[in-house]
């Protein structure tokens, strides 16, 4: 829906940018026009330059991040280099991905008012404007709440109200889905869409989760990779063009399923929404494909390595965070524990590792009650990898960091070196053994933290949101690595709300809601059960929607077939690699 008769509001003309700290330009030869009222999605893998593009738009470049610019960028008729970040903030409103970190005020009202305060608006007028802006995002009854009383979605709404209050022309969302659970992410996309339709604002979304953003229509998708624009087309065209995989973007699952079934997509089929895609010829192909899939019938029959029996816990003695939670993790399993924020996922891991003590119930390791074991003793069979690797790393050099647990346990240096080397080799970090940790990427740091746990030879590895904020390429890298460790016999427990991860890598999912286990079943069942989906703030997988549209009787069966097929493809490509 390009309105070429109108003047574009954003013009990148042969634009390039190089950070002073980088040897190569991060952006080069960018030519891009965005028209008023358009809704554009910018996708690209990590390091593609899409965030840099966002920083150029909102003025953080050159205000906070310095570098060399080539070409020109014109926003609402003004040359970017002649504007201060303050001028820019009147034109472009930015919602950052960290909905907690960007919450500056002590209450919702104050946070929304922040820009007005900085503009010296009189207090009574400010209160009036804040109420209006809060009402637009349904936060008007929460004005006095502090950030720790809000959910992630509410914090994001607050951030949105905080930029809309300035009546900006352009709204820029920098990875709005990164920190939200699937259901909240879906709502966020709906809110953005409603605002786009109700106002005349130009909306730019930077995200790598294409399928989730396409939940509501966008006018254009711009694919960025390696500092350049590699595609700029409508979503329908894009899904048929086959550029996504090549540039590290995951295509929607239903599109993948259709391709497996041998359906060739064309833009006329309107493939950008699973609800509206034309499946006239596709449904027979899907059914035929379903009969050909080789099903994976292996069931883990090992004895449980960890069992949680009727565990209850409360932080304040009033509200139970966990209520009679029971489940078993079998030796050699790869399991996910899912549920909305505050459902008790993190608490259960803290109980297992001994950071907190259960009020009632028993946790067993190989049948033995572990209540008498200290945090340190438990770490020898139960390794916990935290979400943010920077919260775990305390040494400057990789080998020292990985060997820290052994050193603290007084293991002699020869044995230590040997165990460190083994762990580094398993984690593909051997070449970096004497590197400083600061030189590593996020994914590599994650592997360092995993390696430092592996040196203690744990039997179970628990990872809290191992793929949060990772693009498809890094996600695949981390998950394949974990799958390999799992094949070598390590039991892996993943705390997550990433539905793809559940579907692709963990045969079984334990679902917590309000401190209770509401489901303990194959991921394909969990993600097709409307009741569980709703209570756990998950989202129905688009594969299931596809089966309903194609009138396939058992959606769960179809989803399971898809999982098995992908697993088979993966094992084939792994064999090919090795």
């Amino acid at each position, binding site marked *: 829906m390009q309105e070429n008769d109108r003047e574009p509001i954003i013009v990148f003309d042969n634009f390039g940018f190089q950070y002073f700290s980088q040897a190569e330009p991060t952006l080069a030869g960018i030519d891009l026009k965005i028209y008023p009222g358009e809704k554009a999605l910018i996708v690209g893998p990590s390091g593609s330059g899409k965030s840099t593009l966002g920083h150029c738009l909102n*003025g*953080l470049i050159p*205000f*906070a991040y310095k570098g060399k610019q080539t070409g020109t960028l014109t926003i609402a008729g003004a040359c970017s280099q002649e504007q201060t*970040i*303050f001028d820019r*903030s009147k034109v472009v409103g*930015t919602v*950052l991905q*960290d909905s*907690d*970190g*960007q*919450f*500056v*005020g*002590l*209450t919702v*009202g*104050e946070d929304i*008012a*922040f*820009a*007005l*305060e*900085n*503009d*010296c*608006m*009189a*207090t009574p007028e*400010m*209160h009036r404007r*804040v109420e209006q802006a809060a009402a637009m995002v349904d936060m008007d009854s929460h004005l006095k709440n502090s950030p*720790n009383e809000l959910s992630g979605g509410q914090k994001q709404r607050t951030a949105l109200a*905080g*930029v809309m209050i*300035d009546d900006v022309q352009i709204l820029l969302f920098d990875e709005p889905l990164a920190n939200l659970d699937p259901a909240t992410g879906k709502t966020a996309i709906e809110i953005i869409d409603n605002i786009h339709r109700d106002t005349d604002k130009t909306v730019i979304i930077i995200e790598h989760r294409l399928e989730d953003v396409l939940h509501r229509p966008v006018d254009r998708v711009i694919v960025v990779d390696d500092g350049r624009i590699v595609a700029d087309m409508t979503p329908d065209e894009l899904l048929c063009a086959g550029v996504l995989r090549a540039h590290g973007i995951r295509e929607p699952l239903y599109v993948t399923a259709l391709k497996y079934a041998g359906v060739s997509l064309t833009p006329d089929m309107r493939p950008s929404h699973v609800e509206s895609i034309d499946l006239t010829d596709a449904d027979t192909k899907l059914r035929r494909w379903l009969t050909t899939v080789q099903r994976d019938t292996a069931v883990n029959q090992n004895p449980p390595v960890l069992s949680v029996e009727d565990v209850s816990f409360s932080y304040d003695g009033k509200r139970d965070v966990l209520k009679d939670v029971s489940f078993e993790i079998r030796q050699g399993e790869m399991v996910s524990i899912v549920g909305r924020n505050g459902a008790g996922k993190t608490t259960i891991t*803290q109980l297992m*590792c*001994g*950071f907190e003590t259960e009020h009632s119930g028993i946790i067993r390791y190989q049948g033995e009650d572990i209540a008498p074991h200290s*945090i*340190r003793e*438990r*770490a020898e069979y139960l*390794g*916990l990898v*935290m979400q943010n690797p*920077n*919260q*775990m*790393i*305390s040494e400057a050099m990789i080998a020292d960091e990985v060997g*820290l*647990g052994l050193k*603290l*346990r007084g293991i002699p240096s020869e044995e230590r070196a040997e165990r460190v080397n083994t762990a580094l080799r398993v984690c593909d970090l051997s070449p970096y053994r004497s590197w400083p940790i600061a030189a590593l990427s996020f994914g590599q740091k994650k592997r360092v933290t995993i390696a*430092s746990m592996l040196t*203690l030879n744990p039997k179970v590895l628990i990872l809290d949101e191992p793929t949060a904020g990772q693009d498809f390429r890094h996600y695949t890298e981390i998950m394949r690595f974990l799958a390999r460790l799992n094949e070598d016999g390590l039991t892996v427990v993943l705390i997550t709300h990433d539905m793809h991860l559940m579907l692709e890598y963990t045969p079984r999912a334990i679902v917590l809601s309000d401190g209770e286990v509401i489901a303990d079943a194959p991921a394909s069942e969990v993600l097709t059960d409307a009741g569980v989906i709703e209570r756990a703030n998950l989202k129905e997988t688009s594969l299931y929607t596809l089966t309903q549209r194609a009138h396939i009787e058992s959606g769960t069966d179809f989803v399971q077939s898809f999982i098995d097929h992908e697993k088979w493809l993966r094992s084939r490509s792994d064999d090919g690699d090795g």
Partner: protein
Amino acid sequence: MKINLFTQSREDTFLRRMSGVAKLVCFLLLTFTVMLSYDIRVIAFTIILSFVMFHISKVTWRQIRVIACILLLFLLLNALFTFLLAPEQGVKIYGSRHEIFHIAGRYTLTQEQLLYMSSKLLKYVAVAPLGLIFFLCTDPSELAASLNGIGMPYKGAYAVSLTLRYFPDLQRDYNNISMSQQARGLEMSKKAGFASRVKNALAIIVPLIFSTLERIEVISNAMDLRAFGKHKKRTWYSARKISRQDILAIAVTALIFAVSLYITFFINHSRFYDPFA
């Protein structure tokens, strides 16, 4: 090892409803009153006033237990050292000497010393509840607004409010890091020697600093993007208009301050009240 110094009060009292600037001015006036005067009568009056205020504020003992104990300990130590270092200070000030009993060596307890030391101690006893009430019954952001209102540059004032905003996050990070480092085998209890405890503390502080730096980058970007620092001044969402009640409160405390100055200059002719003359 959970840090929890004190919690804000949410009781709706007239102290809560007063504007932050008025509270700050009243607090400062009363503080000056007791700090300038060593007159035990003035101090006693302020103590009564501050305990009445404490009662009105509905702040509970539980909320201030920790901080009050620390303060009390500090005061007793202070009194002890005052006596040890200057046992004749009271005699010097009041110019007379009424011995109570001899302790040892150069140490004799005199009525003058006793009066001097109790005046000094009671000054703090008078001010401390006022300070606690002020902090517990003022929103941190209103505090920032009032600091700015009485002339502190707003960037500095805002830093106060930001610190309080991110303090719980920092506390949570600290606890998480501490747990995960303990899982790796870090000994944080008294079992470890002093040197290794210092080294072990580093293993928590280094990751805390790095994750805090990440946080700071996000916050400062968020603030820049919403034009923090654009003008030389800024207004405050949580600032309250000065009400009649506020003016009344300021007037009453100003009067108390004036009376204490009058007593100092025209009745006592010094900061001390001398009952021995």
